[in-house]
């Protein structure tokens, strides 16, 4: 990212708001990972369904666990899922999309497109359930299901972009200095897609956290630990009894983080758009 990009991003007030929100949540996640925050998420520290108090800011849940602690720990869960899925699916999508675009209309392209078509045609939640069943409740089943299906969008975007970039003259210039094709992809073609990857990465991150919530709600998600999805699943019964602690804590956290990420993605897209800079 160049200095110009950062300048443009800084002048975008909504984007900076988004960045601040995301950074705060990221700090919380770091705090949890380093053992400073949310360590008492499973401890029963009060009566059941206590209201908000100085000791329990968001009250307690059915069995008397502190909801604030659980919300903080849930932040780390969200980032763990988001980061892992984003990094893996983006890598997979970039490499496969890059190869498909470079060898477009060749056999490799056909295979990758076919694979993408097959994966895209399976209903996702059915697929996630199937993976969870096949892996016999492994805690990584959810991650795997997301990685295996989320790369297709990235690959489609990268494939199109690569097909555009490979016609540019500097690719010919790379051939003229004797760079082999496969190296050209990684040295000159894919680096020129970084602005798309950055934006697509934030979108996948949001999608992964969202999906985690839904899968946990359905019982296909987080196995040990706690997540916002599990809290929302608990709250679906509790709100009927007038206990809103879980619902408000997890729901607003999810809303804030999603909002922050979407604003950031939007601003990044504008800031990274350098078309017209070089013609």
């Amino acid at each position, binding site marked *: 990212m160049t200095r110009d990009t950062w300048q443009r991003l800084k002048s975008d007030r909504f984007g900076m708001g988004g960045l601040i929100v995301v950074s705060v949540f990221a700090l919380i996640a770091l705090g949890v990972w380093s053992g400073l925050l949310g360590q008492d998420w499973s401890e029963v520290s009060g009566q059941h369904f206590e209201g908000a108090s100085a000791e329990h800011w968001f009250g307690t849940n059915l069995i008397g666990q502190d909801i604030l602690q659980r919300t903080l720990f849930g932040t780390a869960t969200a980032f763990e899922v988001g980061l892992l899925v984003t990094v893996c699916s983006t890598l997979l999508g970039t490499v496969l999309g890059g190869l498909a675009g470079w060898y477009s209309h060749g056999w490799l392209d056909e295979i990758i497109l076919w694979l993408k078509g097959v994966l895209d045609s399976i209903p996702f939640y059915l697929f996630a359930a199937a993976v969870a069943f096949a892996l016999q409740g492994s805690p990584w089943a959810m991650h795997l299901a997301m990685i295996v299906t989320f790369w297709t969008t990235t690959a489609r975007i990268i494939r199109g972009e690569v097909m555009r970039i490979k016609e540019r*003259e500097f690719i010919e210039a790379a051939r003229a200095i004797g*760079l082999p094709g496969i190296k050209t992809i990684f040295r000159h073609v894919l680096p020129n897609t970084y602005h798309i990857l950055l934006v697509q990465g934030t979108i996948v991150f949001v999608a992964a956290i969202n999906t985690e919530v839904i899968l946990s709600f359905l019982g296909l998600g987080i196995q040990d630990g706690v997540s916002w999805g599990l809290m929302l699943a608990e709250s679906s019964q509790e709100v009927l009894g007038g206990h809103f602690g879980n619902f408000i804590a997890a729901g607003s956290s999810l809303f804030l983080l999603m909002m922050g990420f979407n604003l950031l993605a939007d601003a990044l897209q504008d800031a990274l758009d350098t078309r017209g800079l*070089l013609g």
Partner: protein
Amino acid sequence: MKTPALKVDDLSVWFEKSGVRVPVVDHISFTINAGDATGLVGESGCGKTMTAMAILGLLPASGFGVSCAGIEINGRDISRLNASRRRAILGRDIAIIFQQPATALDPVFTIGQQVGAVYRRHFGGGKKQVRQTMLETLESVGFKQADDIAAAYPHQLSGGMRQLAMIAMATVCKPAIIIADEPTTALDGSTRTLILHQLKHLQALHRAAVLFISHDLGVVRQICRNVMVMYCGRIMESTDCESLFSHARHPYSAGLLSCIPRISAGRPEPVSAIPGQVPSAGDLPAGCHFAPRCTRAEARCHDSVPEPDDQTGGGAACFRPL
């Protein structure tokens, strides 16, 4: 006789269009000696760039056909090399400077990274040494603050500076042959002079053979000793620059020369144009391709192809030269 730096023997390029062979470059041969610059001039679409791409072996594999009796660099035939051996030569022994420096440089890397990468690709070497060579090359093409330029991205430079950077990329390995494909066409007048000056300086410095492709005879005259005039994929006239300007022998060369507007004190003469239009590659007339537009054409010009009239393969390919 010493070995020429570049020898192209009977090179043809064509593409297939609905089963018919459409010639783009038609049996051309020429040689360039070390330290010499040869101009390749002609109108747009006459096959100049195709010739360059065919020499480098960079034509897209699908769609184009190439045949030749040999392309030799310092006596070594490169036309039969396999892909990886050919890649080892590209950029090291033979380099190309493109017409559009704005698009021929990768926008996400600095000039220093790109110039250094060419050298590291062919000669390896440690970080320090690569950087040293890179900075020296940038200085040799005329950059005063090589450090600043090395750290700059292509979009931060002006058109002329980008072209100098391209020239640095082409010369960092000190190749025996530099192909310059209209390197000054996209630039303004004063920048053009600067680029030509640097190119000439480097050519003398490295004793490189330069194939200078241009449609601008004036530019060719400034930089080249010899010149080849190309029309519809064939070389019409091949001679040294001075004779072409003082006495063009092929009617097409003479026509091209008369198209250059002259500034004189008196009343300006009207600029003459060659009558007719360049035929399309798929629809070339038989015999001499220029015959339909030629004022001196006679019956045999429409039937058979004239050979170059010089024993060494130079001269004018014309039955009725001027």
